[in-house]
């Protein structure tokens, strides 16, 4: 039995000098065979394993991670969580996810520090306003909480924003999702890992998948740097490396991998109590519980697998940040980093079966999949377990690129994260 976490156990362990805390997950060697192999120990992969075990009773599962778990985009993102997407299909999926988020700490018995401080998406021109209001209307009818704030409302919700009409792109208003916010990214990976491990899932780090064994059009195993593993079901959840992996199974995915950078400031006392995103001025900023301002903007233009980007991208986003928040000018940037995001042409994810029987892919989350972690794992587990798409996953299948049933989330929602 896994030790429970609570104020009480913390107290008890404190009194015994913390010597009796168990490992949060084991570090097993790979077994020769599993019922399901998940490739990629990011949040989505770990969540998939967790829900396979919890909801579908499939516990003979391995999560294979080439580095350390959560070390991909899960541990590199700016942790914005929201569900106010434009199209019905996306709103349903992200709202499903947000609902899971709201019970996640309790479900995992791990505090993922969901902080629903509200997410504002600013509008700076008449086109922005039109699109933003359209999204608010659609969100409401889809049961997603959404409000439109005028400039005064923006100022009231976030008093430090510069709402002067005399700036280059004045703030004309914003959409607000009060249930949106941030969460602690590492805790999400660790919480799912601990939960999956407790249910019997083997989490195997430093184990890179190098190929797939396919017989008669069906998956029979994977090759790894720690040997071959037999299995009849593989879920590939490798973010920026999805297309590379899929290619090894002979599948060409409509994905492009780009670096996406982020940065934090030195910690300061609380000044910014919500998440502000602007697509036109192009930056988004929140403040973490530790006091660091967390910010990011758009992808680096070129394709890359190196987890770093160009400095000029940061210079631009900093100008945008100071345009919105002039009082931040004398603060200092403490850390920068980058992740590799896999972007679909329609800026929507892939949750899909493939032409290879038993091979499933979960990816294309691009710049915005952290918020989807619980929902994605939940519906992907269903898809793998039943060998048929979960109803919420069905629209995100690969064949939408053949039929044309795209779910274009950049044209209209036009918000990257």
């Amino acid at each position, binding site marked *: 039995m896994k030790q429970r976490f*609570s104020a009480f156990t*913390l107290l008890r362990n*404190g009194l015994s000098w*913390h010597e009796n*805390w*168990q490992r*949060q997950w084991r*570090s097993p060697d790979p077994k020769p065979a599993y019922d399901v192999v998940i490739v990629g120990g990011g949040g989505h992969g770990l969540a998939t394993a967790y829900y396979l075990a919890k909801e579908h009773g499939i516990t003979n599962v391995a999560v294979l991670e080439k*580095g*350390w778990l959560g*070390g991909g985009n899960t541990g590199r993102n700016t942790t914005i969580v929201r569900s106010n997407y434009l199209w*019905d299909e996306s*709103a349903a999926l992200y709202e499903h996810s947000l609902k899971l988020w*709201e019970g996640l700490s*309790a479900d995992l018995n*791990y*505090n993922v520090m969901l902080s629903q401080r509200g997410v504002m998406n600013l509008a700076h*021109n008449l*086109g922005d306003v*039109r*699109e933003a*209001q359209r999204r608010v*209307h*659609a969100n*409401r*009818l*889809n049961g997603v909480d959404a409000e439109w704030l005028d400039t005064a409302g923006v100022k009231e919700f976030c008093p430090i924003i510069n709402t002067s009409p005399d700036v*280059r792109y004045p703030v004309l208003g914003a959409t607000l999702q009060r249930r949106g916010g941030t969460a602690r990214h590492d805790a999400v990976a660790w*919480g799912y890992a601990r939960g999956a491990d407790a249910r019997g899932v083997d989490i195997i780090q430093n184990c890179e998948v190098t190929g797939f064994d396919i017989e008669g059009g069906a998956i029979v195993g994977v090759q790894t740097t720690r040997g071959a593993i037999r299995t009849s079901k593989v879920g590939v959840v490798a973010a920026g490396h999805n297309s590379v992996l899929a290619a090894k199974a002979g599948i060409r995915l409509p994905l492009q991998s780009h670096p996406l950078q982020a940065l934090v*400031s*030195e*910690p*300061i*006392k609380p000044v910014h109590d919500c998440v502000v995103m602007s697509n036109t*001025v192009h930056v988004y900023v929140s403040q973490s*519980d530790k*006091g660091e301002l967390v910010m990011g903007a758009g992808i680096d233009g070129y394709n890359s697998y190196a987890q770093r980007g*160009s*400095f000029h991208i*940061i*210079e*631009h986003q900093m100008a*945008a*940040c*100071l345009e919105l928040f*002039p*009082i*931040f*000018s*004398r*603060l*200092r*940037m*403490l850390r920068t980093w980058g992740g590799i995001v896999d972007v679909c*042409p329609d800026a929507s994810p892939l949750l899909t079966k493939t032409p290879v029987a038993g091979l499933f892919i979960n990816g294309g989350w691009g710049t915005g999949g952290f918020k989807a972690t619980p929902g994605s794992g939940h519906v992907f587990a269903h898809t793998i377990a039943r060998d048929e798409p979960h109803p919420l996953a069905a629209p995100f299948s690969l064949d*939408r690129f*053949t039929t*044309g049933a*795209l779910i274009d989330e950049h*044209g209209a929602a036009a918000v990257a994260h």
Partner: protein
Amino acid sequence: MTKPMGSHRTANGGRIDRSRPLSFMFDGVTYGGFAGDTLASALLANGVHLVGRSFKYHRPRGVLTAGADEPNALVQLERGARTEPNLRATQVELYQGLVATSVNAWPSLTHDLGAVNQLLSRFFVAGFYYKTFMRPKVLWDRVYEPFLRRMAGLGRAPELPDPDIYDKMHVHCDVLVVGAGPAGLAAALAAGRTGARVILMDEQAEAGGSLLSSAESLDGKPAPDWVADALAELASLPAVRVLQRTSVFGYYDQNFLCAVERRTDHLGPGARPGLSRQRLWHVRAARVVLATGAHERPLVFADNDRPGVMQASAVATYVRRFGVRLGSRAVIFTTNDSAYDAVDALLAAGIGIAAVVDSRPDPGPRAEAARAAGVVVHAGCVVAATHGTRRITGVEVRGCEGGVLAPAGLRLSCDLLAISGGWSPAVHLFSQSQGRVRWDEAKLCFVPGEAAQAQTSAGACNGTFGLGAVLAEGLAAGASAAHLAGFGDGAVPATPAVAEVAAAPGDALWLVPGLKPLGRAGKHFVDFQNDVTAFDIRLAAREGFESVEHVKRYTTNGMATDQGKTSNVNGLAILADTLGRAIPEVGTTTFRAPYTPVTFGVMAGRDLGEMLDPVRTTPIHAWHVARGALFEDVGQWKRPWYFPLAGEDMHAAVRREAKAVRDGLGVLDASTLGKIEIRGRDAGVFLDRIYTNLFSKLGIGRCRYGLMCKEDGMVFDDGVTARLGPDHYYMTTTTGGAARVLDWLEDYLQTEWPDLEVYCTSVTEQWSTIAVSGPRARDLLADLAPGMAVDPESFPFLSMREGMVAGLAARVFRISFTGELSYEINVPSHLGLAMWQAVMAAGARHGITPYGTETMHLLRAEKGFIIIGQETDGTVTPLDLGMDWIVSKQKDFVGKRSLTRSDTARADRKRLVGLLPEDEGEVLPEGAQLVEMAGGTPPVPMLGHVTSSYWSPNLGRSFALALIKGGPERLGQIVFAPLAGGRTVKARIVEPVFLDREGSRQNG
């Protein structure tokens, strides 16, 4: 309150200017210091050792270092708009009137309420917050998280915008030398003498690095004199540039490095109005020499964080360079030789030394020399505990063998504890350059492995420590860098003569045992600022966090504002020991930019306010401003939105403007439209492939409206293209889409169809476009262009003419976006205003009315003309817009194949229709979603949405355009728009053309 100036100074010496006293204030008390002090040295010279509180436990903290690696001494500098949080006092140069306050303490440093956390510290171990505060969720939302947030954070953000300015420089050089210590100066000299363009950047106020606090001599000169000579020589070399106060913080690909120069900070706030406060340097160097030195590692022992505990090298620096009497009785605790420099410095300054505690059983020649000078050296011993609260008062010394403490030892009282756990080369920039570091077991540190770029490391950052060797390495690196960049023959100048110092190897002592098991008595701090202890690292490992990255994230070791300069290696070594692995097996964290934190403002530079993004205005802009126009941002353009007369709101203005166009004459500045010249043999073929309709057969002098799609068949841009000659077209695009379209054209030409001979040139800025529209437009043109035949037969709709208009050579296009008789008069930009004025003058008798984009939008909507980005959103095909007539069945074009995909060809796609609200006065909000039935609980199935919506003075009612599922099949049906607040608007679906269906107005 005022304290006497520098009561803790040495009698003389140091690099402070004792003839220039300065006063400053710390936590409300006024003190004195000297020019040349840092805030830290000045505080220490006033006997102030308690300078801050730690992040989590609020432990009292003193100055640990003398540089960029300082974890403890963080201050809030100045007040008001120029206040700045979290500055390291060790790097703040003193100036007259400086005001600083400590961070993270309330109500005061000495009486800090947050210190109650120390009582609970037993429970606040690494990651405790992941294990609790989970239920009920409302308590987390309302109580715990707000409390955690309030406790966290260090200093405060300013409450006002920054009054200072910042700028940027871009330079190229042959050799960039980073760091002006002995290795860097030597490298710069060797490279500079070859005539190469050399830049030497150093983060401190003065060049010299460790030489500034060294007692050694070079070529018989005291070290600081040698530095002065070296600087003089560098100054005499015209191609050499030396930049002090300049921190190189990032090393990017292709030898691109970024640095921040602090230009005015040392002068005090607002001292140089108009001068940029900081400058961001972008350097592209043929070769880079890194000479960034090394950071001394603290030792990890119980309660190693008391004020008065200081790096041994910092002790030497404060005594020698700043003339500070750090205490009256010092203990030195070391594992290696370098701390004996501090012993020498203390001896020379006459500061009492209680003892040297050297962990090595056989500490070697430096210890012998100290003993010879009368210093007690306890070999094979460690400091097992410390005493004191706001200042160290004593230490417990114990013998230690094989990690086991001797049962008894002695207690020494002291007010200063100098510690040295060895050195960590500053490999940060090397690592950022993608070089891999390697563990050197003999030197007990990570050293640079093979260079990944055109770069060499020299001196301490390369793991080379003796002065002679450092100088030799610097000279060799400089000479070879210049040579590789094409200067000099690579010959290495002679190394200055320095005295040999006998040395003994250091000891690997990563965790000093305490008097009780780890964590039970006292705290062994690894990361001082984040309050991470050796116990936390052990706990993390116990809980399965084995990767360095996991431990770092779980414990927050190395994540503080000093970026782990003093904690990374200690943390790694303790983890390795816990896991029973060798250090290199556990790995190292990779370093990322920035090396030290960088001010936001300097990264933004001048790109603020109006300069955030270029403002594009038309040649007629000033006229619009004078006329009182309100403007709309469209991309980077400022477009007149409407022209209100006195007392008019937008509604009234638009009503007047729109009536004027339909009934008489209006004029619009359309200069912002994208314009692209398309020339070349294959121009027609090219346009046929890009547009959904045919252009190769267009007659010369004729115009055609075209749509372009992306590969997925979705409409991408539109506009009118005219044929000016056999191989010459003139394309117009949307205002916001011009750059996108040009990129798109070039993309196809360069990557897909390189065989086509076509040249595209943006001429948006070259032409000014004035659209005159309304029943009187022909009369106006006739007046303005007497030489031009303007009758419908001579100048039909969709044709263009060149000729004199108002005495100016112009191109006139007869096209219409309003559905009225319209002409677009194009003249070279510099004539735009003149033409506008001529049009206004001639139009006066026709009652000409300037109108803006709002009226334009209304007028085109009355005709059902689309706007890209409004009726389209990247998911709309030409067929969805009911524009089948423009989609060629014969030829191929980009996006055509996608139109037949099963989903794209569905009959029930969302398609363009018109809407008439039941209530003729009710203007539907744009973006409103449409449903079949009012009411219902979410998710409510949606049919589509309102894309454009207006009240029309010409129709005398409201109307809208909408995209609705299977729209054209639903004509006559009623749909509902549920709005915020529960109100629902009813509307009837109609054809999307509300006026002049036959087009007789525009065509006539």
